[in-house]
C-alpha cells in the first residue's frame, strides 16, 4: 500500500537525522538531486516555472485516476534535491490529501531555519505550486 504524505515526511525526517553536520545533509540533498530523473525538456515551460528562486525550478503535474503525479527539475543541484523531496512527499496523492497536508518536514529537518531566506522562499514557492495544482485539478474535477 502507498505511504501517506505523513509517513513519507516522517521517513525523510529520519533519513536526515542520520546526518549530524549540515554539510552532510547538503551532500545528501546533492545526492538526491543527482538521482532525480530529469524532467522532459518540453515540460520545462514558463507556466511550470516556480517563482521566487535564485535558480530555475520547474514543477509539472499530471492527473491520472484522481491522483496527481509530479515531475520537477532545477538547474542547481541542491535545489533539485529539495525538489526531489517535495515531489516524493506529494506525488501520487489525490488533491484533497495534498491540500490538507502540512509540509512540516521542512521545519523538522531544520532546513527552514538553515536555508537562506531566498531559498526557503523558493521551497515555500514549490509547495505553493504543488497545492495550486491540487486546487486546480480539484476544481476541474468538481466541475466535471
Amino acid at each position, binding site marked *: 500500500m502507498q505511504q501517506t504524505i505523513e509517513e513519507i515526511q516522517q521517513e525523510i525526517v529520519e533519513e536526515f537525522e542520520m546526518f549530524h*553536520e*549540515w*554539510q552532510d545533509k*547538503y*551532500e545528501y540533498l*546533492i545526492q538526491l538531486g543527482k538521482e532525480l530523473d530529469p524532467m522532459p525538456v518540453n515540460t520545462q515551460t514558463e507556466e511550470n516555472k516556480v517563482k521566487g528562486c*535564485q*535558480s530555475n525550478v520547474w514543477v509539472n503535474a499530471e492527473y491520472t485516476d484522481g491522483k496527481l503525479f509530479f515531475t520537477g527539475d532545477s*538547474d*542547481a*543541484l*541542491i*535545489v533539485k534535491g529539495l525538489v526531489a523531496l517535495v515531489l516524493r512527499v506529494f506525488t501520487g496523492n489525490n488533491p484533497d490529501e495534498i491540500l490538507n497536508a502540512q509540509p512540516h518536514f521542512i521545519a523538522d529537518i531544520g532546513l527552514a531555519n538553515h536555508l537562506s531566506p531566498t531559498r526557503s522562499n523558493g521551497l515555500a514557492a514549490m509547495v505553493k505550486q504543488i497545492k495550486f495544482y491540487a486546487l486546480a485539478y480539484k476544481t476541474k474535477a468538481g466541475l466535471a
Partner: protein
Amino acid sequence: MAKIRENFPILSTKVYGKPLVYFDNAATSQKPQQVIDRLVKYYQEENSNVHRGIYYLSELASAKYEEARDVVRTHLNANSLAEIIFVRGATEGINLVANSWGKHNIVAGDEVIISAMEHHANLVPWQQLCKEKGATLKVIPIDDNGEIIFEEYKNLLSDKTKIVAVAHTSNGIGTINPIKEIIAEAHKKNIPVLVDGCQASPHFKVDVKELDCDFYVFSGHKTFAPTGIGVLYGKENLLDAMPPYQMGGEMIKFVSFTETTFNDLPIKFEAATPNIAGAIGLATAIEYVDSLGRNNIENYEEDLKSYALQKLQEVKNLKLIGNAKNRIPLFSFVVEGTHPLDLGTMLDFEGIAIRTGNHCAQPLMQRMGVAATCRASLAFYNTKAEVDYFVDSLNKVVKKLIS
C-alpha cells in the same frame, strides 16, 4: 600582514568550525578595530546633535563631523568642503544627482549614457529619469573581455547627451574603466560625468581633480567604514546650481508657511540629522588605510591579484567571466557542469564566503552570456594562503557536484 589581519577581529572567527575566508568584499568590507573603537568613543564620549548646539558636546560632535568631511575632502583631493556631501551610500548619491541635477537638466529628447556593466544602482535611477522625461538611455557596449569599446562610446556622445554615468570599476567582472579618458572625451562636448566609485575606492586612491570628474560617489561600508554612510562628491558650481533633494531641518535657512530659503553647500543636501557616527567612522577608516600606506596596499593587491588569477585559471573547467587587462582582484567565474548556487553553498561549509548570482548587474550578466556567476572579491587583508585554500576547496566541491 598577520598584524593587519589582527586589526580585523571578524577575520579570526570560524564558520562551521573552519576559519572564515571572506571573499565577498565587493558586497561589503570588514571593519578594522580602529573604526569600531572610534564608534565606541563617539557614543561614549562625544555623541550629540551637530550644527545647532552651543554647548560643549555639540560643538565637539560638530567639529568631529566637519573634520570627517575634511578627511574625505583631502582623500579625494576635492577643492572645498562644499563639494563633499555625506549620504547613506552610493545608491543614494546617484539618486540624488539623478533627481536633483537630472530633473533640472534633462528634457524630452535628451540622452543619458551609461555602460553595459553598470550596477543597477547606476542604471535604474537613469532609466526611470529618462522614462519620466521622455529622454533616451544609451548604453556603451563592452567586448567579450568585459572592456568598454571606446570607439562606440565616442560615437554615442552627441549634442543630445546630457550626462555620462559610468562605473570606475565593475562590481560584476572587475574591469577598471579608462575613466580619465571617458571623462576627457565627454568634456570635449561639455558633458558632465558621474563616476560610480564603489569598487574603486576600496582598492586605490581616487583624485577627483586629476580625473576631473563632475560627480563621484562611493559607499563607506565597502571601504572599511560603518554601514549607512557614503559620499557624493560634486563640483561646487554644479552642486550650487542644483535644487535640494530632501527637505528638512538642517538644510533650511529661513522658513515660513509660504516660503523657504535653503542653506548653503554642503548642508543644502544634508536635510536631516546625519549619520554622525558613520561619517566619523568613515574618516577613521580612510586614516587607517592611509596609515598602512596606499602604495603598499596597491602593490600587495597587485601581487595577490596576479597570484589568484593564475591559480584560478588552473582550475579545470573554470571559465572566467570578464578578462579585462586592467582589473581589481575581483573574479567572476563559472565552472562547467555546476551551478554557482551549488558552488557557493558548498564552499560555505568550508568557511569560504563568496557571492553567487547576478551581482545586481543583470544586463551585464546577459551580455556576458551567463545567468549568474560565482564572484570572489579580495581585499588587502586577504592572503595567498587563503587563495590556495579557496582553490583547493573549489576543486573539492566541484568534484562532489560533478561526479
